């Protein structure tokens, strides 16, 4: 940058002349200079947790690249063939063309297995990093105005990613994924009124039919990716418009962004990070086996493997199915009501809806219409953090329940014991997690207050002239202090009559929720308190 004026005087090298001409050519046809001016020096704050969304984005690019390679060889057809490839234990076995081509990719195309494993590991990482990214956004309150809509788009991306994962998992038509589809079929059939027909139309006849792989394939490689790319586009556009949040820090306010500019520092980091993510995925894919479909064999409705599980992100749904107590099915008016399927669907639906709409719920409770660009420390929003911990626990129990049989064999327990424990944990776990987390947050806030007012305990004991012993507290400097005292504080809503002098039910409800959220708040330290405490110490 500083050398720019010097360049004007010196004669340009050939490379510079070429770059200049090329840039001119493009700009005269696209007016791209405007975009570069707008975006090129945008500031991105630095914090490790702000990179998680990038992990998701980059693993998605890796998925696109490796997936494209796979489409060149994969045959999305359920036509029955006799496998004559090079994997001996399946020679001569009847299987679908989809399965046979998957085996060919694995065993007869150089780098094919590598690409399959890159694709699958990247897919697991994609969903996992979205999950972690969402947790970061949630626990730092980065979903508050003006980012509620972007949270929702991100949520949609999470659901789409799971859909992508599940459709992809089903494509090879192996025993594991076939039984997965069998479970989907069973669940769909359990939906009241329309279930039977939805399943019938989805599978193009009776399960498994000969259509499902090609139908899922077109969803997997065209429709879902197209929607995902569009949603990512909007997600990132809103990111640029809203600018990134930042953690509280000296000099940082709600009205500025502090960090490194896109060009060149952030671009180099982010670009380099893409290669690192790609590299890490490739390293995992070249050393760790994933989804060995040849071991599972082709789909056949008769066999099943012990330890049949979906990929991790569908685990919570599988766990919910496992945890239903016996006998939840009945007949009313001649129709069959499968509550052992309806109940998990409704519960998961509610859970997902709460996740999707949480920002709007919290905005309604606080009534805060201001923009928020400073990320909260989780402890400074104790109720939100506690709700999050409860949600994480709920999800984790369902997830663990999906591997109940493996938990049983690996920890020498009985399946029945594991299931019963998970059932109890599903109800009590979130409650316990809520209270523990809330207490921990409030405790940390109190500690912060204590430190802000009285400094750190230095461990140094001093005897005063009049004989009293005191421990010397080391005061914080202004920069450290600022991190501890700068946070938003809310108080419970007071119920007040509206213009007509009435108190509506909605108002009462909101007031009670607001009380639940904020009644045991701990206010940030004020300047007066600081001065008072200083006086005490002197």
């Amino acid at each position, binding site marked *: 940058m500083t050398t720019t004026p010097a360049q004007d005087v010196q004669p340009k090298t050939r490379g510079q002349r070429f770059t200049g001409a090329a840039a001119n050519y493009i700009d005269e046809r696209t007016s791209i200079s405007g975009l570069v001016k707008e975006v090129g020096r945008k500031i991105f704050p630095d914090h490790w947790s*702000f990179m998680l969304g990038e992990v998701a984005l980059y693993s998605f690019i890796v998925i696109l690249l490796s997936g494209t390679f796979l489409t060149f060889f994969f045959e999305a057809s359920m036509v029955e063939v006799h496998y004559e490839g090079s994997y001996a234990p399946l020679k001569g076995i009847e299987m679908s063309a989809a399965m046979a081509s998957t085996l060919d990719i694995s065993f007869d195309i150089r780098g094919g297995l590598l690409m399959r494993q890159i694709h699958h590991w990247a897919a697991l*990482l994609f969903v996992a990093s979205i999950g972690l990214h969402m947790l970061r956004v949630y626990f730092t309150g980065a979903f508050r105005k003006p980012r509620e809509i972007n949270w929702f788009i991100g949520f949609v991306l999470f659901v789409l990613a799971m859909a992508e994962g599940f459709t992809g998992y089903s494509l090879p038509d192996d025993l594991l994924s076939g039984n997965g589809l069998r479970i989907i079929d069973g669940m769909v059939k359990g939906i009241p009124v329309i279930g039977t027909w939805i399943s019938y139309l989805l599978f193009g006849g009776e399960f498994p039919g000969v259509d499902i792989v090609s139908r899922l394939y077109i969803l997997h490689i065209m429709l879902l990716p197209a929607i995902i790319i569009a949603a990512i586009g909007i997600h990132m556009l809103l990111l640029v418009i809203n600018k990134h949040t930042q953690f509280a820090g000296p000099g940082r306010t709600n009205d500025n962004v502090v960090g490194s500019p896109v060009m060149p520092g952030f671009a180099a980091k982010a670009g380099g*990070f893409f290669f690192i993510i790609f590299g890490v995925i490739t390293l*995992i894919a070249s050393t760790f086996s994933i989804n060995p479909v040849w071991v599972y064999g082709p789909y056949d409705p008769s*066999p099943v*493997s012990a330890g049949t599980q979906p990929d991790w992100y569908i685990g919570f749904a599988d766990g919910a199915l496992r945890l239903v107590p016996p006998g939840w099915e009945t007949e009313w008016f001649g129709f069959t009501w499968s509550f052992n399927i309806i109940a998990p669907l409704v519960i998961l639906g509610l859970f997902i809806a709460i996740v999707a709409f949480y920002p709007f719920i919290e905005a309604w409770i606080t009534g805060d219409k201001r923009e928020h660009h400073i990320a909260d420390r989780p402890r400074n929003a104790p109720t939100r953090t506690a709700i999050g911990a409860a949600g994480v626990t709920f999800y984790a129990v369902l997830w663990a329940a999906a591997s109940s049989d493996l938990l049983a064999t690996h920890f020498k327990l*009985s399946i029945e014991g594991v299931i019963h424990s998970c059932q109890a944990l599903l109800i009590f776990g979130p409650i316990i997690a809520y209270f523990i987390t809330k207490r921990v947050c409030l405790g940390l806030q109190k500690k912060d207050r204590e430190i802000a007012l009285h400094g750190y305990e230095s461990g140094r004991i001093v005897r005063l002239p009049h004989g009293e012993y005191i421990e010397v507290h080391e005061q914080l400097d202004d920069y450290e202090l600022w991190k501890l005292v700068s946070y938003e504080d809310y108080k419970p809503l007071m119920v007040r009559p509206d213009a007509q002098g009435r108190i509506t039910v909605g108002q009462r409800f909101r007031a009670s929720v607001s009380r639940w959220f904020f009644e045991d708040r701990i206010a940030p330290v004020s300047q007066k308190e600081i001065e008072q405490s200083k006086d005490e110490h002197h």
Partner: protein
Amino acid sequence: MATKAARASRRSQPVGRRHPLATVALLLVGLLGTGGAYALFTSSATAETSASAEALVEEGGKLFAANCATCHGLDLEGTTQAPTLIGVGAAATDFQVGTGRMPLAISGPQAEQKPVQFTEEQIQALAVYVASQGPGPAIPADMYLTGEGYDVSNGAELFRINCAMCHNVAGAGGALTEGKFAPALADVTAKHAYEAMLTGPQNMPVFNDTNLTPEEKADIITYLKYLDETPSVGGFTLGSLGPVSEGLFIWIFGLGAIVAITVWLTAKSN
């Protein structure tokens, strides 16, 4: 392919089975070498029992009385604690004692594999003794145990249909009810695998010779051997537990490593 498998087997198994003709040779050896005992178990019309076989039965009887009779009864009639052994045959005895499951150490949901308590000869004596008290399935002939010359893809299919639901497709084992489990099959000897199918130890169903013929059992054993000896093409298998271990791996190690990288990435350089 065949020669490669043979070469692979030679590397990992120092004993015998070197030549493609091994099947034939083993057939002969199987019939002749263990001939005495073999003929005794299978045919009720044993023409002449050699003196050594009688001695074997006698030794087996002593071992049985000392180690097994407390639970199974002196006359193999069984007690409230243990089932009768009349008619279980040499195969069941060889499996239970040869894998260390018997004698039972502690009562639990099921008898588990543990260090073997007896020598080869003692196990043989016990098997002969139990077989002498009532006819039952015999110890399999070696010709079915080579894992060579049989149809590996048929074995794999039969394995998926008859075994994988409990033992997992990769033979990694799986859970049963009330704390019981189907054990992992890696490195189970061919003989014990065959005997397990034949006799249905504990809660395992019986796969008698009309359900899975000896040739089909040999096919399955060939597949198990293939699983044991073929390297995992994809890399480390994470216990062959499928999506659960894959999911845990990507969260803990994959995402863990990446989070560590993001910390480095965003740390201020000095």
